[in-house]
């Protein structure tokens, strides 16, 4: 790791190799984007916390001018405070004046003066940070500026063609797999412009209702507000725009005007978050999309996996309607097999596989035989519950016999359920079991409370505890015990954490004599899921990962077979909705260019996104200035335990108007601009 630089100043680390031979250059510890893309290397990087020059012949004056100009160009999200708006313009004009050989010494004074005002008084971080690298350049390379001013000469690259690529991001946006423009949608809420808020979300995230409710919000862990008090409640602010659109029966608000049909056709296999997202952005781009879904309903795991109380289906259906509204052709009950895939290869310009991971993995215990009554895979269990709760599909006679259910829906009255898991799916299983009337619901988890919270969310875990789920930590099933193929008991091992005396990771060790038995009616394995890849024609030789998911490079999402793409859980393995959305958004962008030009490429913005992800945008040690600490995060009202545990009413009411505004006002709009010279 680390980067070889000529000069860099970033986040307090200064590397100065100006008087050294290039073979003796000291490396910076930061991952600057030197290898910009396959097509070439970068010569310099400028960002909100400093600069990095990778060569000794950089035209720093032009570099400063371009950075100031990028701020002008990219400030469409801004222009909303006097210092940023006018200050940014002055910066650019003065740098350009010096660069073209018209500069005066007073210009340098003015630059410093304006920079100081911007840094102290701008509304958002972009205005506050743009002067930072510029001042470094002026300070560290003063003689270059003075030379031009004195000699009234143009800077050496002034008339040359140099590529500069810039990207505006924010710590939260960077941390979001779908790179949602979070500060923009929060600003929309703050300004009571809910339509603008929604439009900002939908630039990269079509499932605003859904991800405003059930996203694990990695963005909140990268929220700069944490540095002074608590992170913004980013996720909950997202649903406000979507709720507004739905509640007022508005026409769907699209982020861009849909392009005219360009004659290209793409097949999307799977109607879950990834498939829906891919279909939406492809259709917006003017591509004819046929979407195939095996189940009788759209939505994938979020529809048939995530319970109603957490993600009301009528809200998810709004997101689905949005996708339909751009003219995606939907084919339900359409199981795609190898023969169909072979047909599709001829019929379509590209195929996006987004079939998810729908096979429940085994617990890996003794006597784990699928034919034992009471052994019920989590995915199928949740399918059956949700297809009834949300769509009214009753259990078939066959299912009722197989799972010993005496009702037309999954009725667990009087039954004891044990679930093995620790992730979101297992939480859904146990909380649904409570709602299905189970007598006793047990979660068996190999690790501790802190880890389960880390793997899910604090809210999720605590709500489950409140509702009466028994969590048995440090436990695993040793053996299923049945009587004539009917599950009766589980033999459980108990573990403890043992720290490694050599300083390694602590290990789980079995507690001797800690074994015990529990009587159960059902064991639901919710350990993990794997992908059903039976649709891939063997002669395509599609490469797989060691996890038995479809392999791509994780950047353009093309499989080893040209024209066939994969996104979502089938590519990554069981992961979050927002991850699926992010992958599918990227894949749709690549596919759209591929079907029109025949080339696999990334846009400069996409390349920059990746570079910044590696460099790291959020700095949790940063001292924040200009904001008063101690402003509490708003908490939305939830249904009380008694009100929620027997039904499927949405648990979270969402913010009241007052809470939403006060939460949105806490957002510090941490936009940053970064630029690469090539």
């Amino acid at each position, binding site marked *: 790791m680390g980067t070889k630089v000529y000069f860099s100043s970033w986040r307090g680390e200064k590397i100065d190799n100006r008087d050294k031979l290039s073979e003796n250059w000291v490396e910076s510890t930061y991952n600057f984007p030197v290898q910009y893309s396959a097509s070439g290397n970068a010569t310099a990087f400028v960002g909100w916390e400093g600069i990095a020059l990778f060569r000794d012949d950089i035209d720093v004056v032009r570099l400063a001018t371009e950075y100031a100009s990028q701020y002008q160009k990219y400030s469409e999200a801004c*222009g909303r405070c006097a210092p940023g708006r006018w200050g940014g313009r002055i910066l650019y004009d003065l740098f350009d004046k010096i660069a073209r050989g018209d500069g005066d010494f007073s210009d340098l004074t003015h630059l410093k003066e304006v920079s100081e005002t911007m840094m102290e008084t701008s509304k958002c971080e972009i205005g506050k940070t743009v002067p930072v690298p510029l001042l470094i350049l002026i300070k560290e390379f003063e003689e270059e500026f003075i030379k031009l001013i004195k000699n009234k000469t143009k800077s050496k690259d002034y008339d040359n063609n140099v590529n500069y690529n810039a990207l505006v991001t924010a710590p939260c946006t960077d941390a979001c797999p779908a790179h949602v423009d979070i500060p923009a949608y929060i600003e929309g809420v703050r300004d009571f412009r809910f339509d603008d808020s929604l439009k900002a979300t939908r630039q990269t995230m079509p499932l605003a209702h859904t991800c405003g409710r059930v996203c694990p919000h990695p963005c909140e862990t990268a929220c700069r507000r944490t540095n002074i008090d608590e992170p913004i409640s980013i996720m909950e602010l997202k649903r406000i725009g979507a709720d507004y659109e739905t509640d007022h029966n508005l026409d769907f608000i699209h982020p861009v005007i849909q392009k005219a049909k360009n004659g290209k056709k793409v097949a999307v296999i799977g109607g879950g978050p990834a498939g829906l997202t891919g279909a939406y952005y492809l259709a917006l781009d003017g591509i004819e999309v046929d979407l195939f879904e095996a189940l009788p309903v759209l939505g994938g795991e979020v529809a048939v996996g995530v319970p109603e109380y957490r993600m009301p289906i009528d809200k998810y259906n709004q997101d689905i309607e949005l996708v339909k509204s751009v003219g995606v052709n939907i084919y339900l009950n359409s199981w795609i097999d190898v023969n169909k895939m072979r047909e599709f290869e001829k019929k379509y310009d590209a195929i996006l596989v987004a079939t998810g991971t729908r096979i429940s993995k085994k617990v890996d215990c003794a006597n784990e035989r699928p034919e034992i009554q009471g052994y019920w895979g989590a995915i199928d269990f949740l399918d059956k519950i949700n297809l009834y709760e949300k769509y009214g599909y009753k259990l078939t006679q066959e299912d009722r016999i197989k799972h010993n259910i005496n009702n037309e829906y999954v009725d667990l009255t009087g039954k004891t359920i044990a679930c093995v898991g620790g992730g979101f799916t297992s939480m859904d299983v146990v909380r649904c079991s409570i709602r299905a009337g189970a007598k006793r619901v047990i979660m068996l988890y190999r690790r501790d409370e802190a880890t389960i919270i880390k793997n899910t969310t604090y809210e999720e875990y605590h709500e489950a505890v409140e509702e009466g789920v028994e969590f048995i930590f440090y436990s695993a099933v040793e053996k299923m015990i049945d009587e004539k193929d009917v599950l009766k008991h589980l033999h459980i091992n108990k573990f403890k954490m043992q720290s490694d005396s050599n300083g390694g990771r602590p290990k789980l060790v079995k507690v001797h004599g800690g074994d015990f038995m529990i009587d159960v009616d059902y064991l639901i394995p919710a350990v993990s899921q794997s992908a059903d890849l039976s649709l891939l024609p063997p002669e395509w030789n599609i490469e797989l990962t060691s996890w038995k998911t479809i392999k791509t490079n994780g950047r353009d999402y093309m499989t080893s077979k040209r024209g066939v793409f994969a996104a979502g859980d089938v590519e990554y393995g069981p992961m979050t909705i927002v991850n699926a959305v992010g992958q599918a958004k990227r894949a749709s962008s690549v596919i759209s260019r591929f079907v029109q030009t025949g080339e696999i490429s990334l846009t400069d913005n996409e390349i920059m996104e990746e570079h910044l992800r590696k460099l790291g945008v959020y700095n949790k040690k940063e001292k924040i200035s200009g904001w008063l600490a101690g402003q509490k995060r708003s908490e939305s009202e939830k249904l009380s335990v008694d009100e929620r545990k027997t039904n499927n009413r949405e648990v979270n009411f969402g913010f009241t108007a007052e809470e939403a505004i006060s939460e949105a006002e806490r957002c510090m709009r941490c936009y940053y601009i970064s630029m690469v010279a090539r």
Partner: protein
Amino acid sequence: MKTKKDIKFFINDREVVAKAGETILNVARRENIYIPTMCYLEKVNPIASCRLCLVDVEGSKGSILSCQTKPTENIRVKTDSAHLYKQRQNIMKLYDVNHPLECGVCDKSGACDLQNKNIEFGIDCQDFAVKEPHRKIENWGKIQYDPSLCILCEKCVSTCNQAIGDDAIELKFGGYSSSVFLKNKNSKTLECSTCGECIAVCPVGALISTDFKYSSNIWELNKIIPSICSHCSAGCEINYEVKHSSTLNHESKIYRVTNDFENSSICGAGRFGFNFANNPHESNLKNKKFDEVVNALKKAETIIFNSQITNEEAFILQKLKEKLGLKLVNYEALNLQKFLNAFGRSSGETLPNGKIEDVENADQIIVVGSRIIVENPIVRYAMTKAFKNNRAFITYMHPVYEHLLHNVVRQFIRYEVGTEEGVIALLAEALLGQVLKFDLDVGYVSGETNVGEEELEKIFSIGKKSKKRVLIIGSDLIAHVKRENIARFLGVIQKFSNIRILLVPEESNSLGVAKICQLDEKESGNTVGYNMNGNYIISSLKNIGNFYIPALNQQEGTFINIDQKVKKLNVAVPFNGLSLNDIANKILNDKNKKQNTIEYTKNIFGIDFDSLENMQIESQEIEIDCNEMPHEISKLPTFDGTLVYNSRTFLEFNPFSAISQNVNINETVLIGSEQFATAGKISDGDEVEFEILGEKFRRKFKIDRNMRGVIALNPVFDKSLKSYLLSSIYKFQKVKIVKVAI
């Protein structure tokens, strides 16, 4: 709602206390501690664009924005220091970048925030200049926008969105080339209610009134007359700004109307429709005329009048009735009296208990029988605020769909014309169903009214969750033939629930007239019209009638407004003739003669006009044995065919606003839906004719694609005094539309 406690902290070493939700700036202002601002506006959420309100907090790194920061316990805030002064100075320097130095011809000069702040921070030259992009002046009808003068404080867009609800303008972000632009990109004109609040709140000369432009320097308008707007029942407080007409003509003239835009908003009719003073030629004011009017009254059997008059005028008319044994006829006010009487017998109180403030604070609002957007714009602004601030669930029940309300209203219910009695019955059932059972065939009524049971269920379920509920009742229900039974339903709603009922009276002073006058059912014999047609006409409408009297901006007097508050009108421009009081003095001829009209104020309210301030008419409890219950609903009427709705437009409420030279009278088009065009076999742009109450209308027809149903909006303000009759009847009228061959 969580209870939040007060927060004690210090501003400039003084201990102060912030109440829940208050920001540092709020507290400072309350405590009279000065913090400069350019973008802060009391009536909207903090905008935070100007950055001038920066303050320092001990121990906190960097200056913080006082406008949007809520204080925490015991912080020590400093509002001023050499450092802060310097930062503010620097911000002002940036504001001055390229700001045109055209103060000499700028409408805002002398009352400009940019000028004021430059003076305050001692900025005497423009330190920075940059290349100026081309910026085109936009002409949006009554409003002009000059982007080069705009400082992008966002007051206008926030007001339009948060205080008014039109959401017609927004900011186009683009760094240095940011500007205000029309939200509907396909439109060249403003699609809004033309309230002109954007002009009012603009701190510089970027948004100005095209009418007022170049008509006067602001500092010359030194006569500022506080009064109230006379155009609707809101009775908004306004200022008439007055000076002489021209160098040669020294007669006073109103140049513009302004308002306290920091805290309140007014509508376009009030802001632009002020020029209706009656200044007749001297020859019309001779004593000969005086004898004529006295004789006309003595000969008459009936005085017909309307409710756009002061309480004092109404009182004098009542005196004349008593003295001369005349009939007093005012259909609209009589309907209101009947309505209120029935309401009183069932509720046990004389008046409905809702106020505009209740609308603002409500979390559930139901509007029935009113095109509220023009009947009382202030109620509509309160609805906007309730939605923005409390996310109130608003149900709008009216046969005419209101597109401009779509971003605040959650539920539009278009009921069948004429079925208002059924609608109210269903509402009462939905709102009181658990407390009180009515003998109601819900299936039948729901079918006839076209109000679905699911929609009512929604109103009911929202009602269960809501804490502050308001039911807004429009004049369609008072003009309705079944007004008394409607009133009974409303009476029991007020009696048996916590729902507040806000009645929107038809005219500016309907409540006053209904309180003061004993009205007769029908005119007979010789009639004298008081601002109405009759055999002899006494009128304050410019150049109309046989005898001229002062208009409402030429007299002192009082109104009772929608909030049942007594509001005072003042003389903005003089009237050089005689008033109703002078006529009455001649006729009454007794020792009770009054020198001035406003001496009657004491007779009405028991207090002198000059001492009257914020008087509230309290609702009285009525002694009744039992609350009268609504009667059973018999058959509901049906209206088939082409219907018009006699309605105001955004700028024209009545003949007075219409004759104000600043109001565009060419707007008298019939606006209808596509279905209306099909039903009437007409198309956009056709000339059509139809007749209501014997009055012939000839109008250009225009299709509004946002409208629905076989209904067209028909303005009546251009029908001079007849328009009062047309607007006080039930506004939906069945008409036969005839296309005029050209």
